[in-house]
């Protein structure tokens, strides 16, 4: 198992490096004028000086190597524009807990609502509850989040009599962002759990359980639920981490000082070090999520072992 984990980790690090390199190259394609607030007035010499200061006059490969060198020493670079000459880690540090707090709340909410919803829909397939649930899922899945978030903000603030913007000192302003973030996950969990449970309920082992004399509730909760949960488990950590790291859109809608809103901001302001750091964070989260997902699968399903993937199903 240790050997497997070591191999997996090494692969993950390699994947991360490739991702960072691709983004690094992409970032270097951004127009040069974006780096200077008063580009038109600058002479060619001044521009070259500026680029030199940023280390951007060197060949791409050299820039990339020194970036990785710094990274190895835990140095993520220094913000040049977002907050001039402040280390990136210092800027990100206080923002992470804000996003994590919102994310954890919304995740709890989506689990508490989504999983029982999916189970009940499968249990009473084609019943009234199933139809209502399906209607909800279709709306959330089909209508772009960018649109229904707006309406939750407009009418939710009216309804709850809270401010449209987030205020750390007033917990009630967290309700709408948390609910908005949770809606997508609720629909997602409910939809897949229902689908997997319906799939499972047609399998032979469920038939045997029924023949054995198990009641429908026992079959649902003792036999089907865990089997249906296994395929979901693989994606759970990723969805968890993505939620925790914050929603770009929601954070900027409610002016939440978290990670999410930051990304758009720093890309538009061409703060390379910040972009790099945030991409690193997001990509690590993705890679770690996959790793955790696989570990969770091994934990839940005795057929899957570390040495050989798959096993016979």
């Amino acid at each position: 198992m240790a050997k497997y984990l070591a191999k997996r980790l090494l692969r993950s690090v390699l994947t991360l490096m490739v991702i960072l390199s691709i983004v690094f190259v992409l970032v270097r394609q951004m127009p040069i004028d974006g780096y200077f607030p008063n580009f038109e007035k600058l002479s060619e010499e001044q521009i070259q000086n500026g680029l030199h200061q940023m280390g951007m006059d060197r060949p791409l490969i050299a820039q990339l190597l020194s970036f990785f060198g710094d990274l190895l020493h835990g140095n993520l670079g220094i913000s040049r524009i977002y907050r001039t000459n402040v280390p990136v880690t210092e800027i990100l540090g206080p923002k992470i807990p804000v996003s994590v707090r919102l994310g954890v709340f919304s995740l709890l909410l989506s689990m508490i609502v989504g999983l029982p919803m999916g189970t009940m829909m499968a249990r009473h397939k084609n019943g009234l509850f199933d139809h209502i649930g399906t209607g909800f899922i279709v709306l959330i899945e089909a209508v772009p989040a960018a649109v229904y978030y707006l309406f939750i903000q407009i009418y939710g603030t009216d309804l709850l009599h809270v401010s449209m913007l987030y205020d750390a000192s007033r917990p009630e302003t967290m309700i709408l962002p948390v609910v908005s973030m949770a809606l997508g996950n609720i629909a997602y969990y409910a939809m897949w759990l229902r689908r997997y449970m319906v799939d499972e309920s047609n399998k032979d082992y469920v038939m045997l359980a029924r023949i054995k004399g198990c009641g429908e509730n026992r079959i649902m909760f003792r036999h089907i639920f865990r089997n249906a949960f296994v395929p979901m488990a693989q994606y759970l950590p990723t969805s968890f981490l993505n939620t925790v790291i914050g929603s770009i859109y929601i954070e900027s809608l409610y002016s939440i000082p978290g990670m999410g809103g930051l990304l758009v901001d720093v890309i538009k302001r061409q703060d390379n070090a910040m972009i790099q750091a945030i991409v690193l964070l997001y990509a690590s989260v993705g890679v770690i999520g996959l790793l955790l997902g696989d570990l969770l699968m091994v934990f839940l399903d005795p057929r899957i072992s570390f040495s050989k993937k798959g096993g016979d199903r």
Partner: protein
Amino acid sequence: MARLMHAKIAEAEAHASQALTQDLEESVLFSVAPFDERAAESTGESNYSYWRSTLRAFRHNRLAMILLCLMLLIVLFTFIQPLLPNQYDPNLVTNGSNGLPLKNKQPSSEHLMGTNSIGQDLWARLWAGTRNSLFIGISVALIEALVGIVMGVLWGYVRQLDFLFTEIYNVLDNIPTTIILILVSFILKPGMGTIIFALSVTGWIGMARFVRNQVLIIRDRDYNVASRCLGAGTWRVITRNLLPYLVSVIMLRMALSIPGAIGSEVFITYIGLGLPASIPSLGNLINEGRKLMMSPNLRYQLIYPTIILSVVTVSFYIVGNAFSDAADPKNHM
């Protein structure tokens, strides 16, 4: 009990001999009938047609049928609308009698949906925007499908390519799509092409992965092994055996990536990297409406585009799902 059954049988026997058909002589009835080999074979049930059953199952879904019609009507109307009499140019700023632009005018018979904050006709902009958004959505779906299917089939079917593709996938899948979307939109000049490109760049890999998995699942199924044993080439197996099976799932994915692309366009516009205002789109309209949402009497500028967008996305979603269900042979009963 056995005795009872025996008695019942005896009774039945008696009954049967009484009720024997009267129109034929007993001697004829109890003679050997001519044996028809073809009749013996033809008794099986075999008038099943895949596409006919698919269509029937789809037509059975009334909600999907209604939405399909609605969808077609909307698409058609986006083309018809400019040809109707008394329509405004979507980018024309209408001036009032005092020579100033008619800003934020409430819906009236003159302007069916009112005007926006700079005095353009919202009705005209809405339909132009729907047309552009649909164009973006459909283009992205087609590109994704085309690239994704070709790559996916190769990935799944040609074993030598598996390693390479899997590595590419692992990398691409781990870069958050939002980052690519934002970076690409930022680096390239804003415009229709940029948006379509940015959305397709991240989308095809999902389709490819999906097709690959389906191909893997059915590649080794017995009927394909049988085809190969009979000497069918790789290409023939792909086009004849694999693709038809994949049609339902591919159609579903395409139907879902259209609302997805339309939604992403709204998002890109929101962060300020979308289409210029001179090219109306649902994203543009919703974003313009959003800026006015604080004043309740101007919310119509947000609500109208939202309604159209919701109808379009929900229709694609439901029709796609219904078609995929109908195309699944398991549901042909």
